[in-house]
């Protein structure tokens, strides 16, 4: 029983990451009708926003420490962050420690700006082009973005820890009356789950309850008619692209402490997030979220030792197997709309 509760928790956590990325992808599919292969790259850039901010915060000048030596036997150069000079060491350390949460504020304008630039500069010209061309150009863009990051940050993962306050894990087991230590869960992952829930809720609320959202939803359903009504739908779509980029970026920022960011993490997520979106059904935001959680939970169950003993290798293929079964039983995924990208 405790094992199952634990994997549900895991699944929710994994699922929230999938759902968040898939949500951004669906926003772009649904509103703009563009297959965006660069979405994974946006997620990656989000994570590197966190890396960049913590680099900025730890910008240092060097002082020579004569008492120690470096690997060549020369006096050791010690890096002292400028922030120590400004706020003193204690406050400086706290600020550096909180780099990841601070990056949320830092990343939103960066990601929205990147989103706008992408839409205005590139994607705009591809609305009327075949999906194949969209794939090629966004895939090319993804490679370029990823190589730029590699050029500046190298290929190795870069540790980006969460604030010290969030280290350690919460003991659900003790709370629910199981033995202590049976169901533990890291605080930061709980934060990630809560954060995703808030973002997902905010996007839904925005689309559901604001006039802007109403127009966009109308545009998703019938772009031409909305245009004929004299509404400038193009401008709103640009804003939607910015929002989608920000959602992907935020998912990346918060993910940085879970897995150290590296330049190809976007590609690792890209295929998976496409599967999630399609299983959820094209053009359906709630479908994407639902599919994200469903696949996250099933993946967690498949990784249990007891399951693997019966079905070796099931953890390798579970997501794809489920995707096939769902697509064969439900022609347009879980909640897909008719006629969206079925051509």
């Amino acid at each position, binding site marked *: 029983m405790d094992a199952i509760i634990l994997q549900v928790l895991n699944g929710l956590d994994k699922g929230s990451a999938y759902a968040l990325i898939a949500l951004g992808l669906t926003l772009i599919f649904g509103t703009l009708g563009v*297959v965006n292969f660069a979405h994974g790259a946006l997620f990656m850039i989000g994570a590197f926003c966190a890396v960049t901010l913590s680099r900025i915060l730890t910008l240092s000048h060097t002082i020579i420490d004569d008492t120690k030596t470096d690997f060549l036997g020369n006096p050791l150069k010690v890096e002292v962050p400028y922030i120590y000079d400004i706020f003193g060491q204690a406050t400086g350390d706290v600020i550096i420690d909180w780099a990841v949460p601070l990056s949320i504020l830092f990343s939103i304008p960066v990601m929205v700006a990147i989103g706008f630039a992408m839409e205005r500069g*590139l994607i705009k*010209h591809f609305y009327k*082009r075949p*999906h*194949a*061309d969209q*794939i*090629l*150009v966004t*895939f*090319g*863009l*993804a*490679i*370029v973005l*990823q*190589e*730029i990051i590699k*050029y500046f940050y190298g290929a190795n993962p870069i540790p980006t820890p969460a604030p010290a306050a969030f280290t350690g894990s919460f003991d659900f087991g003790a709370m629910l009356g199981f033995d202590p230590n049976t169901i533990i869960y890291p605080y930061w992952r709980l934060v990630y789950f809560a954060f995703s829930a808030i973002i997902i809720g905010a996007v839904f609320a925005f689309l559901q309850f604001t006039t802007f959202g109403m127009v966009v939803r109308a545009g998703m359903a019938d772009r031409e008619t909305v245009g004929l009504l004299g509404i400038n739908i193009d401008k709103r779509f640009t804003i939607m692209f910015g929002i989608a980029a920000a959602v992907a970026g935020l998912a990346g920022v918060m993910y940085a402490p879970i897995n150290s960011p590296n330049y190809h993490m976007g*590609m690792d997520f890209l*295929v998976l997030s*496409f*599967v999630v979106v*399609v*299983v959820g059904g*094209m053009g359906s935001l709630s479908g994407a979220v639902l599919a994200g959680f469903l696949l996250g939970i099933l993946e967690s169950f498949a990784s249990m030792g007891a399951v693997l003993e019966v079905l*070796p*290798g099931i953890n*390798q*293929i579970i997501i*794809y*197997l489920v*995707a*096939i079964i769902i*697509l*064969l039983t439900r*022609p*347009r*995924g879980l909640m897909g709309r008719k006629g969206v*990208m*079925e*051509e």
Partner: protein
Amino acid sequence: MFGLTKKDTTLLIIVAVLAIFAPFILNPFPEGSAMAQFNAGYPDLMQRLVIFGIFAIGFNILFGLTGYLSFGHAAFLGVGSYAAIWMMKLLTMNVIPAIMISVIVAGLFSLLVGWISLRRSGIYFSILTLAFAQMSYSLAYSVLTPITGGETGLQPKVDDPRILDGALQSGQTPRANLFGLEMGTSYEMVVGNWVFTFNAGYYIAAIVMLLAFYLSIRIFRSPFGMMLRAVKSNQQRLNYTGLNSKPYTLAAFVISGMYAGLAGGLLVAMDTQVGAERMFWTASGEVVLMTILGGAGTLIGPVLGAGFIKYMENIVSKINKSILEQWFAFMPDGMEDFFITIVYPFIGKGWHLTLGLMFMMVVIFLPGGLVQGGQKIAGLFRGKKASDDAADGKTTPAE
């Protein structure tokens, strides 16, 4: 000729001439010159160019004609490769049975995958094929290790059974051959500073490629091809006329799967090794990119796209800093450093960046792929009359 129109015959002949003289065409620079770095006329790359050409031609039969975008074609290539290497390990190092079995096994596997995946269309179809390919890759890399060799892949070994072959002489390694003619056999022709390499394996692969290309022209021009185009332009209307399009699309899927298997078998024949990465989604994505880059739906486009990508991968990635220093050595010091700094991010380990930029440039400026670029250049030479041709090429991409 061969039941082709005059235009198609010309195209086939051009391709044949290019294939036959590839050792010259791809080696335009003399040995030892600074530009020799760009020579591609060595057996491995020539073989890969035609083999991936076959792969892309086959993919184009499905994607270019029916519009069904498969994101899992690398699985058929991989399955074909595994079948071929097992044939070599168990039966004989002769490439004929290996290639035959690879086509058959890939055909059967694509029949299964196609039969299931073609129940859906559009992106749902793409994801189904992707799912099958990713499952094949993951299983081949891990739990199927006893059959596939997993991470380390499969290679022929000295102590494999090879029941049809005689025992190896001591000190010999098993080598792929065609009735005794080893795939690695090369003739070198030295002309002044130029060295041209004629490789047996390459010419065998090139002949297969020409046959595959010829077959693809016939398919494009046949009533069957017409039916596939109808599926692309409006499947619904086709169904309303009482025609069941499924058998046609399935046939196209299986044919393109067999092409992929053929490419897989040839890869093994030329370089006796299989690894599971061959089936990873990036490999499936690569053939999609080759086809679109060259010009989807055109006859020659996919071959050009395949050549382009493989050339970049093999040539640009090998340029390193010391080669750059040689190139720019004639410049004054400051300028030399400046140029090296500018160019360095795009070569060697940065070859992906160049590739990504090329993808973007081609698709932005040449919506019809490299074929359209060719048409534009031809148009420049032929003046006004040709600009009509280019326009024509745009409106009927299924040319």
